[in-house]
């Protein structure tokens, strides 16, 4: 302290001196000031991405600990640690070292469980965050690329999860790899070659754990970190979206500035996420590899499932009816594998490209910074609901056996019901959601025009009873009337006087999107409405 005062002519606090020191060497002040003044609109759903980010930080920290003790080798050893029912059993070094982490390294089991729980939370939070973005239309221009980046992160997160799940080389992870091996081999012509390339010979071989480890701790995390950084840069550049409200225009972002309040809250929130994960990890078992034992290609346990985020793929495989595999031209064509892969591939590509598809259908090139209320974009919301139903059906199918035992149903019944959910469910969900959205919009219109029911019944001098409707306040009304609607695009011949197929398609899609729509209340209607209300 005394040295600080002698160095500086005027008396400065240590923090001040330190910041000056840093700033004189990095000129970081401008950046901090700029970032610190950024506003972050307050809505709980805007924090879902942070849950994902913080869960990822926990995954990184706990994973680093695990790398100190995990050995990614498939050499055979006889287990000699402290878990009795595996003593003397032959297993790979990978499995033995994971058991050591669980039983013989202080705090190891806790960190292992925290790593796995945090990974599950990471992907779940990404999923929920994506749903928020989708249903509020926050992927529209200029944020389309950030949607794509986010989607890539989702896929990378799944890949991280799957490679991690396979590392301990226990029965469960081995079964997972066996399924992947089967899927790869299901590709016509190249399948077997690809499998041999991946596993370094006949499955399971002795290479796969080492290879997955490289992916799991080096390549994939580097990609995730890079994409997260890019994702956040874009969030700052684009400003955050916000819900409609007085004073909130497309050009601004209203909310408390990042520094100091928001940053403090976010910092605190990290510790909350950390704390919740620590609590879960210390109370609840996850992936008890000691039950599963070492991988051996012959046994398969009942209730063998992937982690939840791979469930949809497993479910797709389970839903394919038997007998979709036949021999033609001396080769086996495994449509039981190709069909689910193609269906899932198409689903993923459509979801990934959705921002571009919607913009094209609307012919909309404007920027959008105000988040839609889901009811005000009925077709999009209905498409989303259909997608969620499709995904959820596949997801549920991964637990068909457990649904059967826990609800005393037959396996066959569950499978048939879920086949119906996956194929017909999306249409039903689409229809119901669209109707519900439109009904809600009509109700909003009613409320704006005639006020809300106050529950107060008044008797008029003439003996007539009426219920008094209270008008909305200005703020509330603003929230209800400020949204955009679109009309179906008109088919117009282009400069050469022709109507191309693309235009027809687009007009058709546009009609599908916007033929049923409820326009927001206009100023004129509002004034007319005020006149007539009781």
């Amino acid at each position: 302290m005394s040295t600080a005062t002698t160095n500086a002519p005027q008396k400065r606090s240590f923090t001040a001196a330190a910041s000056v020191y840093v700033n004189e060497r990095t000129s970081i002040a401008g950046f901090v000031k700029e970032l610190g003044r950024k506003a972050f609109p307050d809505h709980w759903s805007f924090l879902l991405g942070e849950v994902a980010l913080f869960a990822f930080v926990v995954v990184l920290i706990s994973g680093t600990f695990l790398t100190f003790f995990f050995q990614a080798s498939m050499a055979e050893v006889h287990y000699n640690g402290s878990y009795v029912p595996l003593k003397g059993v032959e297993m790979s070094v990978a499995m033995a070292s994971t058991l050591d982490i669980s039983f013989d390294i202080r705090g190891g089991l806790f960190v292992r469980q925290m790593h796995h729980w945090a990974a599950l939370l990471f992907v779940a939070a990404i999923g929920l965050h994506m749903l928020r973005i989708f249903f509020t239309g926050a992927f529209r221009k200029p944020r389309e690329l950030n949607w794509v980046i986010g989607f890539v992160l989702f896929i990378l997160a799944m890949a991280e999860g799957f490679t991690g799940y396979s590392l301990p080389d226990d029965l469960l992870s081995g079964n997972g790899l066996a399924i992947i091996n089967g899927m790869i081999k299901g590709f016509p012509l190249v399948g077997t070659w690809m499998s041999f390339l991946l596993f370094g010979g006949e499955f399971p071989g002795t290479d796969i754990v080492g290879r997955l480890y490289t992916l799991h701790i080096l390549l994939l995390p580097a990609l995730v970190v890079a994409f997260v950084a890019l994702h956040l840069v874009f969030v700052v550049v684009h400003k955050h979206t916000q819900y409609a409200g007085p004073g909130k225009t497309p050009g601004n972002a209203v909310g408390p500035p990042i520094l100091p309040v928001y940053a403090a809250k976010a910092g605190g929130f990290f510790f909350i996420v950390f704390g919740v994960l620590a609590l879960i990890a210390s109370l609840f078992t996850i992936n008890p590899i000691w039950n599963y034992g070492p991988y051996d290609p012959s046994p398969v346990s009942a209730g063998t499932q992937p982690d939840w985020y791979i469930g949809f793929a497993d479910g797709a495989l389970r839903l394919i009816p038997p007998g979709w595999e036949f021999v033609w031209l001396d080769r086996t064509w495994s449509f039981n594998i190709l069909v689910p892969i193609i269906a899932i591939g198409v689903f993923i590509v459509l979801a990934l490209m959705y921002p571009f598809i919607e913009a094209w259908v609307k012919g909309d090139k404007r920027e959008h910074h105000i988040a839609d209320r889901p009811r005000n974009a009925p077709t999009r919301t209905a498409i989303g609901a259909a997608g969620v139903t499709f995904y959820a059906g596949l997801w549920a199918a991964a637990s068909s056996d457990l649904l059967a035992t826990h609800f005393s149903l037959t396996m066959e019944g569950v499978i048939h019901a879920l086949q119906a959910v996956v194929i017909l469910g999306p249409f039903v969900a689409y229809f119901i959601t669209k109707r519900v959205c439109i009904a809600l919009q009509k109700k909003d219109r009613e409320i704006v025009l005639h006020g809300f029911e106050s529950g107060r019944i008044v008797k008029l001098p003439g003996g007539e009873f009426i219920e008094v409707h209270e008008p909305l306040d200005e703020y509330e009304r603003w929230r209800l009337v400020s949204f955009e609607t679109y009309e179906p695009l008109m088919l117009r011949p282009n400069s050469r006087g022709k109507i191309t197929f693309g235009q027809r398609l687009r007009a058709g899609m546009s009609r599908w999107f916007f033929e049923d729509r409820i326009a927001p209340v206009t100023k004129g209607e509002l004034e007319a409405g005020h006149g007539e209300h009781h």
Partner: protein
Amino acid sequence: MIPKRRRSMSENRKSPMNRQKRRTGRRHPLATVALLALGLVFTGGAYAAFSTGTAQAESSANSQQTIDEGKKLFQANCATCHGLEAQGTTEGPSLIGVGAAAVDFQVGTGRMPMQMQGPQAQQKPVQFTDEQVKQLAYYVASLGPGPDIPADHLTNGGGDAANGAELFRINCAMCHNVAGAGGALTEGKFAPPLTDVSGVHIYEAMVTGPQNMPVFNDMNISPEDKRDIITYLKYVQDNRSPGGFELGSIGPVAEGLFIWIFGLGSLVAITVWITAKSN
């Protein structure tokens, strides 16, 4: 549940010491032989002394009486389906030659008398006293030779858990799940959880193959291996997971549901709380 848990945790903590002792004993080849011999002599001798001394004497004295009692019980409770002489009817199979073990298992776990036709006989509260179960069992055993109720040294869980775990994973886990949490079979049938079955019933299930379960006779799995399997299942029953609550030991599905509902659910609640207007 909590006191039980505590107890098993402390056992856990103690067990490394026991193991240490056992391991050092095992290292000496002669010690193993001596121990084995001693064990065999002791258990065999004790068993013989016990059975000749008391049980055998009693049951031989009562044996005809036991069988007669069993027959009465049988005709009152089981004959509608299995026939007056256990010869079988359209409602139920013949029990001639199924042995005492099958009856002890079916009646002792509350599966028989069967209540309603379904994909699989459901377990209900046991309807007979232990003595009555034995009477039924010896009556059916008297009709034709079949597997007997196993001896105590095979079912008390004193074998090698590691060997048992391996055998269990290979022979049983595809139906019963690696942790014995149970699993689904086709057409509404299921393999039940093995979380609170007694050693005797586990043994009997293996030798009689109830309903949709295959029979594991002594050629498939020797009596000692059966004892090891029981030892493993007892270990799983008595030692709760070192990682905390097991969520039913049914694997990733339970974990996924848990993280969505409780993990993400609680964090969403917290985000709502954080962004609530502070005024």
